[in-house]
């Protein structure tokens, strides 16, 4: 079998327990935040406060996914910032278009 031949020159390292534990911790945090979002969805009244809590939690979740799972937090600074800085355009687009939408609803 090809597998047996390969085994002679492939060194399989043992699992990095600490790293794996950290990954599961991140998964736990993501799960907890989602559960908390559910709690808020059914206990709070609709309004700007509720929306801001949701957005804040979404950003926290996004930070964990991009930072830990996608490993961006540990990449070289140049890479880190060349991914993060262009996101300013998205934020600007969001602000501009929501502003525009509210203006449309006022003239309708």
């Amino acid at each position, binding site marked *: 079998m*090809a*597998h047996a031949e*390969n085994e002679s020159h*492939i*060194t*399989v*390292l*043992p*699992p*990095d327990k600490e*790293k*794996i534990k950290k*990954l*599961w911790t*991140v*998964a736990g945090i*993501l*799960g907890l935040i*989602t559960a908390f*979002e*559910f709690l808020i*969805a*059914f206990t709070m009244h*609709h309004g700007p406060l509720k*929306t801001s809590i*949701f*957005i804040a*939690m*979404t950003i926290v*979740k*996004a930070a964990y*996914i*991009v930072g*830990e*799972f*996608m490993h961006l937090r540990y*990449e*070289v600074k*140049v*890479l880190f910032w*060349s*991914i993060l800085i*262009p*996101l300013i*355009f*998205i934020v600007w*687009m*969001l602000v501009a*278009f*929501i502003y*525009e*939408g*509210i203006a*449309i*609803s006022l003239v*309708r």
Partner: protein
Amino acid sequence: MASTAAAAHGESTWDGGSSPMGASYGKLMMWFFLMSDAFTFSALLITYGLVRSSHKAYQGAVDAFTFSQNYWPIPEKVFESVPFIEGWSAPLVFVGIMTFILIMSSVTMVLAVEAGHRMDRKAVEKWMLWTLLGGIAFLSCQAWEWTHFIHGAHAGKAVVEGTTFFGANLAHNQYGPPDFAAFFFFITGFHGFHVFSGVCLNFLIYFNTVTGLYERRGHYEMVEKVGLYWHFVDLVWVFVFTFFYLV
């Protein structure tokens, strides 16, 4: 000149051979592809925000909510069915399960990447299989949700004098303004297609792992690259979940 001397020894950055961003060409290009994909998804979600905020919001109590063309529906009143117990009101439970499935498959993907770093083929195979299972489970859930959304469960609404419309298509829907269903189809559809592509890529990675291609190559970087894509799909779902279902 000092710089010429350095270049002669191959130490200048401009001689090539070094990666200033500390990542391989393939990984870097995956990052920039994801960047452009993020812009596409943002365009969809922001347009959703624009159209939604230009419609009237529902003002009354949540319990008294009824579907109407005059205001944007409350998502928790639209998405409140779960397979096998249809008819019960379980707002957002099913979409919560879908979120959980996708987060879990992201975890198994990152565990596959970790196993790849250790050249542990058996572990990569195991975690890739779990990731595939998660992706397929998510797609199945979405298929059910689309079917339910298209056919409708509750009493339909009158579109023209005397005719009642059930469910949704791109022109009409029973839940609210026509744009509501259009955005549902476009945003969750575009995301679902990304998940589908992800499952195909994950299968390719699984196949190449099983046949020992990466072991012969000496590294499992492809697992990492496709992993980046898979996490991105999960990331987009986090935003879709918040902006389409929660807010």
